[in-house]
């Protein structure tokens, strides 16, 4: 299979990462903290969706909505319990708290739910496009036939829907505009009458909703277990930083760049190095930060 098929694989991987990376970077841009516990938010969303789909049982689309709502509630409760009380202490204590919270949540999930992997019951249809002609350059075929599955289309469709919704929220609603204002300058936003705590809470809920969606999509493709989200946190963090921490649009760009680099490095690295695709992706992250420390989007949300 050619370059086109691998780019499609990269876009699909990037879509998983992008949905979560938007939530991650919104927290960073507006609450001003790097939330290492965010992977566990994905895990909780995956579990909520799974139990909604199997216990009641609800149709999968409804279970996804339940997971998103549950993710929002969990995110707000955790923020109120662990992060809001120490908002004033600065980003480093918040960062350390989030690392501790992540470890505690991960182990609590493992204790309650066990280590056993659970699987969503889904059916997948594969769509093949084998009539696309080859376009070879050297040993690489740029086009060629490809396939996508219904599951992959849903993931990409969900991601695009999220992008449009987030863009609409940030540009067309009072809450979104207040979020951007607070991201630019919290003091100025406050003196202009914005309830900054309410905006923080809104960000936590929004990030939780996105984590719930991302968790379920990830779990449908893989499984639900105590490390479902944790295993993705490095890629989410990298996408957010690569795109320009605090910028949702940058996070989307960063996520797709990482997804495509992961796919292409797996496809084209020498045989003995194919297991190093993540290292290559992180190498690119370091390279970009060296050249452009503010990330691809290049805009600082708030001046330090």
């Amino acid at each position, binding site marked *: *299979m050619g370059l086109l098929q*691998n780019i499609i*694989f990269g876009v*699909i*991987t990037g879509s*998983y990462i992008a949905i979560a990376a938007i939530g991650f970077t919104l927290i960073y841009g507006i609450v*001003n903290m*790097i939330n290492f516990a965010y992977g566990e938010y994905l895990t909780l969303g995956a579990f909520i969706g799974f139990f909604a789909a199997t216990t009641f049982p609800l149709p999968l689309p409804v279970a996804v909505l339940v997971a998103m709502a549950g993710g929002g509630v969990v995110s707000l409760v955790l923020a109120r319990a662990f992060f*809001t009380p120490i*908002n*004033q202490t*600065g*980003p*480093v204590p918040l*960062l350390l708290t989030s*690392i501790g919270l992540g470890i505690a949540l991960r182990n609590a999930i*493992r204790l309650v739910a066990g*280590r*056993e*992997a659970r*699987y969503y019951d889904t059916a*997948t249809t*594969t769509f*093949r496009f084998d009539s696309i002609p080859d376009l070879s350059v050297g040993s690489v075929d740029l086009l060629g036939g490809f396939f996508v*599955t219904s*599951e992959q289309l849903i993931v990409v469709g969900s991601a695009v829907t999220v992008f449009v919704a987030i863009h609409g929220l940030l540009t067309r609603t009072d809450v979104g505009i207040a979020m951007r204002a607070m991201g630019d300058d*919290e*003091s100025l936003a*406050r003196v202009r009458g914005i309830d*900054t*705590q309410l905006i*923080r809470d809104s960000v936590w809920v929004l990030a939780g909703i996105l984590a719930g969606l991302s968790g379920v999509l990830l779990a449908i*493709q*893989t*499984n639900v*277990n105590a*490390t479902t989200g944790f*295993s993705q*946190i*490095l890629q989410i*963090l*990298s996408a957010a*930083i690569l795109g320009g921490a605090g910028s949702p649009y940058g996070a989307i760009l960063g996520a797709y760049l990482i997804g495509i680099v992961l*796919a*292409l490095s*797996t*496809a084209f690295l020498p*045989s*003995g190095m*194919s*297991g190093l*695709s*993540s290292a290559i992706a*992180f190498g690119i992250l370091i390279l970009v*930060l060296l050249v452009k*420390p*503010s990330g691809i989007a290049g805009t600082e949300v*708030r*001046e*330090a």
Partner: protein
Amino acid sequence: MSSDNTTQTSRRAFVTLAGAGGIAGLSGCVGFGGNGDGGDGGSNGGDGTDGETGGNDTPDTITFGQPASLSGQWDFLQPGISQATDAAVNHVNEAGGPLDAELEVARRDTAVDPQEARTVATQLVENDDVAAIIGLFSSEINPLWDFLQDLSTPVVTPWPGSTFLDTRGGDKGTPEDMSDDEWVWRTVVGDTVHTSGSAAFAIEEGLDTLGVINGTTEGERSYVDGFVSAYEANGGSVAERVEVELGASSYQSALSRLFEADFDAFLMSLPQESAITALSDWSDGGYGRQPILSDTLTSQAVIDQVGSDLNGAWGATPGQSGPNYDTFEEIYSEAGDADINAWTPPAWDAVQVTALAIERAGEATPEAIQQNLGPVSSGEGTEVSTFAEGKEALANGEAINYQGAATPVNFTQHGNVFGTVSINTAQDGEFTQTSEVSAADVREFVEEGQY
């Protein structure tokens, strides 16, 4: 209202530090195994007994330690091992116990993490005062090898398949001379044995070229290396090999790369959860060709999740049909309802042979057990199928040769065992044994003295 005057630190420096630190820190959490390269590992742990009665040095209780995969990616295999161990211990106690003492098991979770295993092994020896350790995986033993030698407590384990242990372990055929001993024995056939059987079966089936997809951990690499070595030695060739990271959300890129090559069958060696993702991707992509699965993947969960596309896939596992499998199965089935897997009968054997070593030695010290594991399991003597029979024979002054449930448990000089290899094929929603490669046939693939 919260204040936002918390941004005195340079934002750029913070992002750089937090990002780099986070990646480094989380990479550490993800774990690349421990180096486990030494340290004195504590003392030899006493004599593994409690409460000596009177002046005849007979202990009231003797404890075996069991490092267990109660959590972690292999936890689905542990219920059978725990049940087999407990059933064996009960059976030994019902027969009067080794040295007429009560046998107990101290079980602690390692999550198959080398650093945790090091801590657990130390606790078992130092705190629980165990006489022997019944457990530890390849991924734990290999990085902790020097530590385990310093621990000087016999490790009799049903788990490890690693080729690393092919020439390490056992008493080197000289039970009286402990200077050349290494403290690891395994009651399960090594990867060299069942990958040889699997490779031989693949060649017999006319599968002459192979694609390989495997994870990057010691266990998966070892399995694949063993298979490929035997496969190529018998005329097969590997067209493409792709290594992948574990826990990925998709393996389509790796599969796409693998299936560009021309081969008859592909070998997959991944932990179960990653394998299910990869095999589901394989099914969705319609890549086809003959799947050959590593030993741990011939499980019901795999076929349940991947579905009917997996029909015809096969994998080789250590045979479960030692000379006294029926004896084991009868007692095991009365002890609980955990499924039997390829490591369950070896767990039974590990307890039986270690208890017999104590009985023959007349004491429950680690050194005595180490010196008697070979004599009770191989060579001339009355063949016994259980501890009860062995205890009686030993009381009559006879030499014994324990014949196990999984294999005959004739320890080689390196503390390894040979056994049959089962070929299990996916058919109609379950794996069923469709063929068997005899221990004698497998021996032909293994060089003398190299196992």
